[in-house]
């Protein structure tokens, strides 16, 4: 059962990966106008030799089917092509930028999960009370404000007017002399992390509230209450663990959502991560890089989903891997 399930899961993940690979390949190669055209519009006319060399260098002179086969084989082997913009292997560029993205994505994911779950659990437990309703309304409002607007407001208030944090980038200009210092990077990361956290807390909160709400009617809660346990104790030891199970999938999917949010936040803060890289690649039509980023996003979603599935039994021993939850 377990082996069969894992096999099926792996097969579907592989299928999804191939679909996304093929889809981007087809789309990006059918696209009118290429990199050369958007960077140096008249080069092909003025200097056909240079244009030909560029095409040969990146294999664009081969037939589409040949390019596709080569791409598939190379991707599996770990060669994701070369970025037009950087002139480096796509995977190397992505790897470096991904590290910077994780610097802000990891703390904000942890923070938003902790805050969202804690406030959501409390709100759901006190369902219908004044506190619950005002927190709920507040969260609806926070969630309705787009992430790019939070990011700009944060810069405008804390960066521009109060001058507490830098306006963007990942290190000060002094880094040229003294090297990149961790404290300096943290100061630069503070606002982007806050923006990402603010924009993803309401989603976690709302689901945790709903999830906790459902446990309040359960019989084990009634039992615990009749034993004379204090409310917060029931919430902590009995309700919370059961409410957390549906959250695992949500968190996995939220990670994928955060990648999207990071495109805006990183662009606004000039944070040199995957999001800003996406924006750059889009702007100059760097096809191999775009393809690589898209594949990396797909991989992240796939792994997040598998991780969520495998962690169910750890949280709830009643669940066996492969059963429908």
């Amino acid at each position, binding site marked *: 059962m377990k082996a069969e399930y894992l096999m099926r899961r792996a097969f579907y*993940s592989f299928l999804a990966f191939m679909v996304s690979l093929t889809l981007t390949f087809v789309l990006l190669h059918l*696209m009118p106008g290429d990199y050369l055209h958007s960077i140096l519009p008249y080069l092909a006319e003025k200097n056909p030799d240079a244009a030909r060399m560029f095409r040969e260098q990146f294999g664009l002179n081969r037939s589409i089917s040949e390019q596709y086969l080569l791409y598939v084989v190379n991707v599996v082997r770990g060669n994701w092509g070369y970025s037009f913009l950087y002139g480096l292997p796509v995977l190397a560029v992505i790897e470096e930028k991904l590290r910077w993205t994780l610097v802000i994505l990891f703390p904000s994911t942890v923070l938003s999960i902790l805050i969202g779950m804690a406030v959501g659990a409390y709100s759901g437990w006190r369902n219908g009370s004044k506190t619950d309703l005002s927190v709920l309304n507040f969260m609806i409002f926070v969630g309705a404000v787009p992430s790019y607007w939070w990011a700009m407001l944060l810069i*405008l208030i804390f960066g521009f007017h109060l001058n507490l944090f830098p306006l963007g980038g990942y290190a000060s200009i002094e880094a040229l002399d003294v090297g990149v210092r961790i404290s300096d990077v943290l100061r630069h990361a503070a606002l982007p992390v806050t923006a990402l956290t603010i924009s993803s807390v309401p989603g976690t909160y709302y689901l945790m509230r709903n999830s906790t709400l459902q446990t309040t009617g359960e019989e084990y809660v009634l039992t615990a209450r009749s034993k004379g346990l204090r409310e917060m104790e029931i919430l902590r030891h009995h309700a919370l663990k059961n409410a957390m199970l549906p959250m695992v999938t949500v968190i996995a999917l939220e990670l994928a959502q955060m990648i999207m949010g990071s495109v805006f936040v990183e662009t606004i803060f000039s944070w040199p991560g995957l999001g800003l890289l996406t924006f750059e690649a889009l702007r100059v039509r760097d096809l191999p890089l775009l393809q690589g980023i898209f594949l990396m996003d797909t991989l992240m979603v796939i792994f997040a989903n598998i991780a969520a599935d495998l962690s169910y039994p750890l949280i709830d021993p009643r669940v066996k891997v492969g059963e429908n939850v």
Partner: protein
Amino acid sequence: MSRKSAFSAGLFILGAYILVALLSSVITPYSPTALVGRPLDGPSDTHLLGTNDLGQDIFSRLLYGTRATLIIGLLGALLSVLVSTLVGTVSAYYGGGVDEVITRSVDVLMTLPSFPLLLVLTIFFAPSIFVISGLMGVLGGTQGIRIIRSQVLSLVEANFVYGAKAIGAGDLRIMTRHILPNVLPLATVKFVFAAQRYMLMGVGLGFLGLGDPSVVDWGQMISRAYYNGGFALGLWWWLIPPGIAVTLLSVALALLGYGLEEEIDPRLKRSVAI
């Protein structure tokens, strides 16, 4: 604020936005694209919110921008709900092989990161607001198929459906007359939340420079103000109004959505939470 008044407030604000969008060519003092004043003028009697770096009237552009944003949000949401309701209903009603194929395809499609895909698709097709909303609708629709499908699965087993079958009603009649009305409340809630999401995404695409360059849109206004000096010079009347316009519309749709959700409670709440 109670749920009911939240719902009414949302409806009222949305109504006001729609009115502005419809009447924008009548109530704006200037054409949104005409160069009507000195660049970077502050707010004054002639230009309520001043002018941008090209000398265009910001207030007129703000009102005109309502159109693009509402079109993307509402059209995208309509398409996505149509796709998910149609496919979800057919999948659950017929079951068997049809259901298997659809469910498996959705499984694969769900793994594709939809926002990066949207970015790639938008630059592939020349970005026009109708194409963008169409893409959002189809991409987003796949996410809703599962939810509608699970709702219909329980309806197919309902007595009134068996009854209709026993009388000899055709599949199409059962689906449209008996199943659809029961799915409609859920679809409406999905529609409102989708409209909110797509509207924000549309403005976001404009901000990233992937919007339709031929229309006036808030995302492009924000990006222009942000990158062309509005931010650095502290010209709040240039940067802040489009942001507030987006935020207010988004809040209104959220209030409307949560109000509606509560309205069709409790059956819906359960099916949404699971």
